[in-house]
């Protein structure tokens, strides 16, 4: 069996998948990054290797995406390192070729992707505000003392509507307290929060865009039934949550890696599963070569520097070449 590996290192979760020649998912894993991208990538690789044990397989390609894509890409020796928009779109189109609108909500960012004829034609991403993301829900769930896993189901039991100001997490919190004092139940408050998040998301990201069905909703937050229901209420149409909703970025990275190695007929640069045993140490250097004081990221593999980036002038990045 030929497989292609995709890894999506996000702020909250690290997701790994393996797909076969037909693009079917043969392995998937979603774990929390916990601020340790290297450890979580290693852990993912170990689990994947174990899952494949005993089966004859060959890794033909590997791709990374997510905010940690650069680091993960260097670690595993990825054939492609792609941004999240391209990766998510590739995966959605693979499973739902007729998709027109993708809602993706992750831990710290959210995006809307508009597709036409299987191609991305427009997109937007949240900028500095996290009010429409998973972190917002995480934070509120914690405040209400409800595990995030139960959040969505609880929202569905609400009997009344309550409007919560969701423009900003800080104000949402004070509004929630006020509404609790008015006597609304936890379930109703949670439903109000789901509505607020979706309203915020659509207003910020969907502004000025015409949204057409089919709608596909993915990312970690898609596990939340309350949010799915809120989306359906807001746009007045069914919203599809794909089977692999929480690892779509990783699937996209694997699909793009496959496309890439096939297109150029190249051999994969994947370092192999031994990477999990390698000693990677990323460090940050405050360069004082000039007034820019760039924070340069340096990655050592078994004591030898294998990558550097983050410098404006290329002084460090280029020092490794040739």
């Amino acid at each position: 069996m030929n497989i292609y590996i995709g890894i999506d290192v996000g702020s909250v979760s690290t997701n790994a998948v393996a797909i076969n020649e037909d693009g079917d998912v043969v392995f998937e894993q979603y774990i929390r990054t916990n601020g340790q991208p290297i450890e979580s990538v290693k852990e993912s690789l170990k689990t994947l290797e174990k899952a494949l044990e005993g089966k004859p397989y060959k890794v033909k390609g590997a791709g990374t995406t997510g905010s940690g894509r650069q680091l993960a890409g260097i670690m595993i020796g990825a054939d492609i390192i792609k941004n999240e928009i391209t990766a998510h779109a590739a995966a959605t189109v693979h499973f739902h070729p007729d998709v027109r609108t993708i809602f993706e909500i992750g831990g710290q960012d959210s995006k809307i992707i508009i597709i036409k004829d299987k191609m991305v034609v427009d997109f937007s991403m949240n900028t500095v505000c996290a009010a429409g993301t998973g972190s917002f829900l995480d934070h509120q769930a914690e405040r209400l003392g409800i595990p995030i896993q139960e959040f969505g189901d609880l929202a569905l039991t609400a009997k009344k509507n309550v409007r919560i100001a969701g423009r900003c997490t800080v104000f949402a919190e004070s509004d929630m307290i006020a509404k609790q004092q008015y006597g609304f139940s936890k379930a109703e408050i949670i439903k109000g929060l789901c509505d607020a998040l979706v309203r915020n998301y659509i207003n910020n990201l969907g502004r000025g865009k015409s949204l057409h069905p089919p709608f596909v909703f993915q990312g970690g937050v898609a596990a939340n039934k309350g949010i799915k229901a809120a989306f359906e209420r807001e746009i007045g149409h069914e919203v599809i949550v794909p089977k692999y909703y929480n690892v779509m970025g990783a699937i996209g990275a694997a699909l793009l890696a496959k496309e890439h190695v096939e297109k150029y007929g190249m051999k994969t640069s994947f370092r192999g599963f031994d990477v999990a045993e390698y000693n990677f140490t990323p460090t940050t250097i405050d360069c004082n070569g000039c007034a820019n004081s760039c924070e340069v990221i340096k990655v050592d593999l078994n004591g030898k520097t294998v990558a550097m980036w983050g410098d404006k002038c290329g002084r460090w990045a280029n020092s490794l070449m040739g």
Partner: protein
Amino acid sequence: MRIGLPRALIFYYYYPLWKSFFENLGMDVVVSDVTSKELIEKGIKVTVPEICVPIKIFNGHVINLLSKNVDYVFIPRFVSIDRGEWFCPKFIGLPDLVKYTIEEAKERILTIDIKGKREDTCNWRNYRPLCNILHVSEKQLKKALKNASEYWHQFRQYSMEGFTIEEAMQICDNKLTRNQILSQRSSEITIGLLGYVYNIYDPFVSMDIIPKMRSMGVNIITFEMLKEEEMSRQLPRKSKNIYWTFSKKIHQSARVFMKERNVDGLIHVTAFGCGPDSIVGKMIELDSDVYQKPFMTIRVDEHTGESHLITRVEAFVDMIKRKKYSEKRGEIA
């Protein structure tokens, strides 16, 4: 005498003019350093927090020049360079703004009012107040302006041949030839990069967007690469004209890019809080629907993270390239 030019705001459009003008008058021209983190932080410290980042950067450059022992910092007051058109109020009030922000600059600001209908600003009446201060005769002044204007038009000519401002300056200074620059270019797609010169060409604000996009195989065109006639025929005077000169140019050039240059997409780089851009950006967005061109806005301030910018630009370029390839392969897909 040492005349300091802050490498900020409209500098990117007029530097060759001022350099030639002051040198013709026998002055030493000192340009502030390229915008860096340290420089901008000094600017932020002294400036009111609400104002846009280009002004904060400008103040940073003034401070930088003061440390270079200049006799004067040249801060012209740009009022108007075309009939019925004006500059953003911050440009009109710039010398005063600096005067009351940076105490040490107070006595060293060299300012004149730029008014009239000439884009090269070289109406000698604009510059006459400098005669007394710099101890030059009107005759010398007129001669210097004539030379400066010619030099500047040559620079503009290079821009209109498709060279970026940085490249045009290098050609003017004989540091590089046109062929040397052209030989390094290769591109698969063309993107119209919209934005004021001080946003596009300041390496801090734009985070070197031009070299970044070029390394992705993108050919860039910007508003200053278009000829005036090409732009003005796009939007004939209406009852409501956009009365900010450079905002109008951006809007018109967006039209040219979409209608006549057949660009693959447009990116608008704007500073957070820019008033004129909030109108012009929306107008371009509406146009981009009409002409069916991908359009993206990148809004920057002093807190903007580079990784966010890269992700967006990368995704935008990917989107256009992937679409183009699939069309090339004849797939409706």
